[in-house]
């Protein structure tokens, strides 16, 4: 629980979080200091409410799409960004993508293949197998099918990702479920969305027919839930329980081993202190005789994830470099159009302001301020609403990409909205603002006359 709070604090106290807080403070100070100008801008905007509202809604919608796309890209960037400290290391089968390593690898790899004094040992580790089962083998539909991470449940709080998205109550439930799973290996945790699809509740027992371990059908008891979001559709099962079932198979089949008995381990995660330790660890495992049948590949988790996401590279490139710029350009165009029209309609007003003593710079500021206010307001409302509503109701953006079922809108979205809305408004209003600045009093009044 402490680590959860620590995570939240770290997130807000990192340079990015601090710069956001500083930025908000600066804007508030400027608004207080220039409240007369602000009130003038608001009055100008409220004179044509329809136009202001239409421009605001337009910005709102387009910023929402940008928020969604950046949410996906941000999470993938985080997953594939190389860290220098507190590294997660991924160990997989070297030549096959299926990952079918013997269970013995898990025990030996907990020490990172250390055999000499001075060898590096991982700070933590987690072994993964996958179990896919159905409640009704005669009716293979998505509704009666469940996917499990088979692992040591006590590793969940220290090794799994996205725990910072859990609330304190969810963390408390997680710890309680882990205790129950330790007491009885047949107990499982199930994501709330999957549990709803299966129409089951906590405390119920279920029998699953395996789809990836032939004849290994398991009886399980649901002892807790995993919250909506990353784990909402998944389940967690004790790896020992699966291994026990595979061992039991040989007892009921005249000593014949199950075909998957020595292929249960799909992935192994290790945690190391820094890049130096990772390199030593990778060397130890690669040179160890314990892990060469089948041989294994040791890489940072970010590098491993990048390999798995490689199939989507063109799609992600398109999102990043085609869709987002085109939407930003559209937003700038919409705002530029609205502000240009507004400036054209108010040439006389600008001339009067000049006669009253407003400098060209002040008129420029007025027009830019109007655009900035509409853009920032639309953008802020959009990304803040997306953050609250999408995360609150759906537990994140429901878009299945590879193994990721949902993308939680990051806290950074709270500054993306105002920034994107403001920046595109500024870009779109520069030319109209310069036109307003250069309005010639004599020309305007000559026409009026």
């Amino acid at each position: 629980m402490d680590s959860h709070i620590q995570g939240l604090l770290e997130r807000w106290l990192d340079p990015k979080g601090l710069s956001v807080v500083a930025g908000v403070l600066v804007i508030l100070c400027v608004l207080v200091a220039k409240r007369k100008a602000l009130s003038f801008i608001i009055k100008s905007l409220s004179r044509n409410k329809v136009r202001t509202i239409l421009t605001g809604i337009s910005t709102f919608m387009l910023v929402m799409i940008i928020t969604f796309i950046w949410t996906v890209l941000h999470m993938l960037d985080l997953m594939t960004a190389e860290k220098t400290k507190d590294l997660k290391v991924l160990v997989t089968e070297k030549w096959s993508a299926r990952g079918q390593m013997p269970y013995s690898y898990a025990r030996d790899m907990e020490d990172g293949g250390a055999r000499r004094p001075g060898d590096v040992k991982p700070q933590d580790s987690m072994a993964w197998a996958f179990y896919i089962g159905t409640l009704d083998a005669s009716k293979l539909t998505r509704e009666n099918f469940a996917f499990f991470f088979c692992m040591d449940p006590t590793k969940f709080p220290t090794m799994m990702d996205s725990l910072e998205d859990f609330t304190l109550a969810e963390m408390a439930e997680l710890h309680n479920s882990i205790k129950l799973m330790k007491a009885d290996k047949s107990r499982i945790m199930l994501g709330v969305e999957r549990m709803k699809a299966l129409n089951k509740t906590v405390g119920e027992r279920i029998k699953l027919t395996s789809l990836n371990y032939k004849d290994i059908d398991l009886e399980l008891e649901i002892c807790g839930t995993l919250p909506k979001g990353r784990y909402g559709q998944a389940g967690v099962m004790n790896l020992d329980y699966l291994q026990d079932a595979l061992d039991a198979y040989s007892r009921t089949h005249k000593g014949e081993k199950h075909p998957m008995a020595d292929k249960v381990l799909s992935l192994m995660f290790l945690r190391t202190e820094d890049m130096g330790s990772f390199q030593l660890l990778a060397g130890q495992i690669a040179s160890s005789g314990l892990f060469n049948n089948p041989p294994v590949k040791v890489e940072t988790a970010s590098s491993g994830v990048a390999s798995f996401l490689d199939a989507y590279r063109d799609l992600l490139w398109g999102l990043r470099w085609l869709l987002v710029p085109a939407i930003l350009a559209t937003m700038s165009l919409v705002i530029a159009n609205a502000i240009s029209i507004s400036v054209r309609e108010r040439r006389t007003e600008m001339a009067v302001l000049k006669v009253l003593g407003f400098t060209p710079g002040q008129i420029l500021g007025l027009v830019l301020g109007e655009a900035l206010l509409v853009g920032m307001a639309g953008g802020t409302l959009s990304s803040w609403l997306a953050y609250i509503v999408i995360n609150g109701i759906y537990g994140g953006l429901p878009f299945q990409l590879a193994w990721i079922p949902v993308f939680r809108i990051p806290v950074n979205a709270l500054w993306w909205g105002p920034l994107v809305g403001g920046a595109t408004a500024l870009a779109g209003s520069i030319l109209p603002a310069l036109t307003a600045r250069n309005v010639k009093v004599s020309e305007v009044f000559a026409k009026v006359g």
Partner: protein
Amino acid sequence: MFLRKFASWLLSSLIFLLLSVPVLLGILIGFVVLLIIVGVTLLPAVLRTPINLGPPPSAHAFQPLIILPIGLGFFALLFLSLLLLGRVPVGYNLRNLLVRWRTTLMTALAFTLIVALMTVMLAFVNGLYRLTGNSAQPGNIVILADGALDESMSSLGNASSTSPIYLLNQEQRQYVASDEHGEPLVSLESYIVAAQQVQDPQGRSKRRFLQIRGLTEPAMTAQVHGLSLYPGGHWFSQAGVQPIGRLPNGQETSEQAIQAVLGEGIARVMGADLYQRPLQPGDLFEVGTHKWVVTGIMESAGSTFDSEVWAKMQIAGPLFGRENWTTCVLRTSMPEHSKEFADALTKEVKNPAIKAQTEVEYYDKLNTTNQQFLVAIIVVTAILAVGSIFGIMNTMFAAISQRTKDIGVMRIIGFSRWQMLFSFFLESLFIAAIGGILGCALGYVANGWSASSIVSGGAGGKSVVLKLIVDGPLVASGMLFTLTMGALGGLLPALSAMRLKPLESLR
């Protein structure tokens, strides 16, 4: 005050709409006639056409062949009705668009960007649908192990059973089609995903997941899947290996290389890393601890096999821990009854227990990813559309407020309220149409681009290299979309123009 004004505006708009019932009725009758014509002539043809032969598979996702002619016909009819039924001042509108060319251009440009984006995104999904649609052969039945969600989870028995028809009994065998030599058209296959070590452009080591299909009779498998080799290549031999002789650096070696046949998509991708050109017969590459030699390149563009490497099962399987057949594909002699035959096989074959399905059904299930992308694109496009609709609404409201005097003059010289309404409505449609045409043209640039992706039925999935396809229905969708945006964005401002009172607007 505001509410009272709004209520009065709403009431007068409703009265106007009631008064113009004859016009609307005319449009409606035309629309229904068009619907009947389309229904009678096109719909049965579309429904009769099998998925893998007829219209582009995108038709099954959003049925453009039905919706598009109706939609575009509706807009065409609307234009014609307006021009024929009344004196709409079209010339005035066109002149105004030219005079306010900056605003017109900027608004049209916003449409252009949105429509171009939509076209490119849908071209991607279109390519995915075309890919899965083209991979299925009529009359083919795919057999996987019972309960297997995809090929990677299936196990049909040890690969030592090389007789391709071992699963079937004598009675079942008589329904299997044969080739010209009397050999049954059956292919036993093993789907393997291997990890290949490659270097990225920065020289860093990374992994590529490579799809290998282990086979025994490549020529037969190709015949079953309707594939052939490009000239200059040949299928791998019975041995499945050949001596390398001389390495690319000129060094002599006694090493053997595993023979492989490649889809042209993967040949292009792998060749780019090694030789900066697509791989050709005779080229060497490495997977696992072995060297592989290309013996042929398949004409596989537009199918899932485009991303596969085919090799001798008994050699490739053990290298990657796969000792079982995963898939059996057979061609029935009665394609029209392939569904019944597949169901019968599922019931009758028990050792091992299997799930047989037509290849069309199998590839339809792989469309889960495509449908998900399609839904995501529709959501993105819808939100973008709302943004753009408000954009054009803004422009049109501004156009009206700038031209209140014009409207007053026209009303005084005899133009009626509804003519004013349609005049401004047409103006917004015109801007949208210009933007849409440019957007479709811009989006068409993406036609033929290659992209990588995954097709999946919910579990596992296949890496594929697809081509973006901008076809007629897609362009028509873009135009329909842009005109709908223009219509929705232009309606409210046009109604407000209609409401203007001549004398008040001249003050």
